């Protein structure tokens, strides 16, 4: 391909430095702070307020996927008896724990405690139990009941009570106390960061869109792993300025934007650019996605614990299919989307289950066609490019026949 299909962001170097610092400081610069491994939906503001260093195996394993090392680490976990049907984040993480010599950065530094929140899936509970057994460290499971319709007060009380228990658990495990003023301050930074991230996403309503899905996926890392940290807020303000400039100058993320698409589900990390370039070849840009929107929900102002309980219980993966249909339909309207693509992700059951029902409902609601692509977030063994290429071509032909 003669023409470069991606316009690299100027902030890319800053992002890389930020993430390198994140991983290096967790290993070398903890200054006596205990280390927690947490799930992507864990209430990290509390941990930060208690001076606990945090690492996210999900982010680390996505990185393994992008570096084409996840499948071999999955095989390590499979050799230890873990099923190939288990989430590839879990398999990659366990594989890197069992065989750190063959993992990026020699695996993650050993945790002192583990915190899993089941708002994203049930797998994390068993995955973290396996880690707790392997490392002999304490585990806290935060249970956020599924939101079938409206978030109930009883659910909120239940989650708040567990957050109080989580604080006592961390105090017992580490001797660190919660500083409530610090918690409020961190929740505020977290909200600011979330707001800026939401605004960056919203800038993609412009035509042409200043960002494509891989830009969003790569740039979401700090909102996940550094939420509540000033460094993340600073980075997103720089990114926002650059994206605003692209919009002002009408600079698109791809050379020629002919079709505007919505992406649903976790990224295909092992073929990130290669896969999305199959769309770029047809002038199709993903202007919005549901995945990185999962971290654009703020903690409500006021008392921190009820706000945190509400924010973490109502993330979209913990809500009904109806909610997801309505959310996707509204994104399709707001971003002027012509078609949507759903990644039927072998790893992520809660995200992928019900996808065909969501697809049908969104198509009926919006009149916009949807395509399902089968693959996996991390395990490249599931990726078959030729059938995928055919589906993409047929889908684009379908879009073009409508106009």
């Amino acid at each position, binding site marked *: 391909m003669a023409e470069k299909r991606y316009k690299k962001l100027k902030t890319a170097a800053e992002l890389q430095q930020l993430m390198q610092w994140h991983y290096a400081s967790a290993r070398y610069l903890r200054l006596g702070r205990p280390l927690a491994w947490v799930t992507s939906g864990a209430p990290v503001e509390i941990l930060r307020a208690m001076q606990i260093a945090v690492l996210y195996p999900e982010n680390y394993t996505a990185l393994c996927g992008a570096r084409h090392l996840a499948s071999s680490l999955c095989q390590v976990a499979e050799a230890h008896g873990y099923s190939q049907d288990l989430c590839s984040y879990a398999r990659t993480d366990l594989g890197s724990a069992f065989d750190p010599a063959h993992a990026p950065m020699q695996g993650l530094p050993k945790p002192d405690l583990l915190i899993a929140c089941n708002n994203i899936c049930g797998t994390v509970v068993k995955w973290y139990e396996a880690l707790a057994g392997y490392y002999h460290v304490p585990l806290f499971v935060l249970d956020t009941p599924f939101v079938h319709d409206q978030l109930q007060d009883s659910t909120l009380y239940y989650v708040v009570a567990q957050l109080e228990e989580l604080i006592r658990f961390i105090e017992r495990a580490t001797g660190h106390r919660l500083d409530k003023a610090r918690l409020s301050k961190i929740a505020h930074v977290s909200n600011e960061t979330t707001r800026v991230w939401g605004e960056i996403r919203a800038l993609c309503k412009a035509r042409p869109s200043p960002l494509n899905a891989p830009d969003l996926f790569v740039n979401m890392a700090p909102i996940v792993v550094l939420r509540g940290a000033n460094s993340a807020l600073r980075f997103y303000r720089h990114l926002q300025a650059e994206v605003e400039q692209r919009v002002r100058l009408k600079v698109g993320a791809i050379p020629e934007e002919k079709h505007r698409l919505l992406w649903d589900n976790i990224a295909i990390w092992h073929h990130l650019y290669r896969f999305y370039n199959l769309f770029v070849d047809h002038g199709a840009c993903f202007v919005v996605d549901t995945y990185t929107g999962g971290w654009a929900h703020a903690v409500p102002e006021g008392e921190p614990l009820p706000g945190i309980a509400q924010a973490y219980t109502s993330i979209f993966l913990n809500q009904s299919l109806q909610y997801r249909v309505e959310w996707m339909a509204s994104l399709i309207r707001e971003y002027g989307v012509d078609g949507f693509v759903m990644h039927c992700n072998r790893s992520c059951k809660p995200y992928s289950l019900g996808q*065909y029902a969501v697809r049908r409902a969104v*198509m009926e609601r919006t009149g916009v*066609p949807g395509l*399902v692509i*089968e693959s996996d977030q991390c395990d490249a063994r*599931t990726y*078959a490019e*030729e*059938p995928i*290429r*055919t*589906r993409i*071509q*047929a889908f684009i*032909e*379908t879009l*073009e*026949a*409508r106009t």
Partner: protein
Amino acid sequence: MTVASRSSAAGRCYLGVDIGSLAVKAVLLDAEEHILSRAVAPAGYGGQEAAARLVAQVLSEAHAEKALARTVVTGYGRSLFRNADEEMSEISCHARGAFRVCPEVRTVIDIGGQDSKVIRVDARGRVMDFAMNDKCAAGTGRFLEVMAAALGVPVADFGALALQSQHPVAISSTCTVFAESEAISHMASGAERQDVAAGLHRAIASRILGLAAHVGLLAEVVVSGGVALNAGLVAALTELSGLHLTVPSDPQVVGALGAALFALHGGRR
């Protein structure tokens, strides 16, 4: 579909080539959408050589070597084929071809060598939605080939054998590998060959109808692709769906016909 008089190639000609995993197909049209010639051959290794020979054959049969105006290629070998003006997906081409042979069509079931697809089309023949099998031989021509071999029956006679069955066995697995071992265990326990054959045909039909459920199965339903020549499978699909199915007289070249129509009319019509 009728083949027009072969001397009518004086005007411009339009070629559609469909390079599939098991067979290559070519259809040559005149400007009035009449079929000047058509041909089918085994794909062989990669399909490109077979496709080049087939193109030479259809052009020579119609004496149209100098009249070729435009070529559209489709099928798995499409991106490697050098002598086309445009490549299009099988989905669009099968829909276009099926709409030409049956304008009432709303659903196309195309069962090819390595994939099967169900396509919903609107009243103008445009693709509205589609579903394809993914990374799995169940519900494809390959499945039938493997099973025919397991039963020691030529694949061409496999469907007819299934039609003789009074008591089809139950094949629960749709995985080609597991279904083969299930078939073998039925044979080992003394089941009649035609009953095993019928069970296998029902398994593949149910798999295809499962795929169809993703896009909905609206009448008229046209079955295209080489597997449509298998009467046993069409009977199983009819029985399990309860719908009347239309099988074109030359189902194998529907995709190539669609490609030729795109060559003739251009654009995405």
